[in-house]
């Protein structure tokens, strides 16, 4: 497991916006590839590790150069839309059931709709703040989003809509 730990540590050398986008995926891909190469014997595994670490370090250099030479609006536009991303562990059926529920918005009370819109707006602002490296701002929006979600939950209970764990704006 030491190789995986070393890899996770080296991932921290990447720029933060790049890490937010790719670190989990890279770690997942590395762990699967490492598992596959480990059983092929020590020399193969060491060669694999060397290739990975050299690739990672040259990638770190390349990403810092790209970050310093690319306009932030270009780099920011491939940030994931958190409202569209299914969190780990949430089944696809449950996620999309929530989305379809959201299509029937005409029947929702106005205060629930505006609470949902506020949560969505705060998510967007958090993403935008991260893209622009405004981390204190991102923390503030994230905190406000938590409060807005609490409010939304309270409104859903008030209108007897239940607390399905999906408030229509995740």
């Amino acid at each position, binding site marked *: 497991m030491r190789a995986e730990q070393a890899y996770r540590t080296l991932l921290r050398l990447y720029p933060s916006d790049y890490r937010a986008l790719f670190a989990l995926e890279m770690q997942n891909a590395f762990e699967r590839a490492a598992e596959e190469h480990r059983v092929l014997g020590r020399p193969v595994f060491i060669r694999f590790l060397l290739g990975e670490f050299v690739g990672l370090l040259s990638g770190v250099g390349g990403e810092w150069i790209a970050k310093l030479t690319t306009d932030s609006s270009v780099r920011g536009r491939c940030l994931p839309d958190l409202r569209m*991303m299914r969190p780990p*562990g949430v089944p696809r059926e449950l996620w999309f059931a929530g989305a379809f529920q959201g299509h029937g918005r005409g029947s929702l009370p106005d205060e629930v709709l505006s609470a949902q819109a506020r949560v969505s707006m705060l998510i967007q602002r958090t993403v935008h703040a991260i893209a622009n490296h405004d981390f204190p701002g991102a923390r503030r929006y994230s905190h406000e989003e938590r409060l807005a979600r609490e409010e939304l939950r309270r409104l859903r209970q008030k209108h007897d809509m239940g607390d399905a764990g999906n408030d229509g704006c995740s």
Partner: protein
Amino acid sequence: MRNKPASKPLTEPVLLILLSLAEKPRHGYSLMKDIESLSDGRVRLSTGTLYGALRRLLEDLWIERFEQDDTTREKQAYKLTPAGRKQLHAELERMRQLTHAATTRIRTREA
């Protein structure tokens, strides 16, 4: 917008990534495996190289993130955009012309 035609030949990793995604959407590990098999084991992209190229392709709007049955933040699939497919065709055409010119020249020389 950076979505403009490529002015120079694509690098090998980029070409292989586009070729792999031309068939169907894939996530990172699946791309690594497919590229290895596409190149007969000659090219094995490290995760650093692969995701660096994916980041550039996302910025150029040649690929996009794609929701699959098993999509999570750890396992995100990518697919080719129409602009990416156009670039791939342009690159393959460039290579075809080059191969044709080279073959003609070699035949002329040998005749």
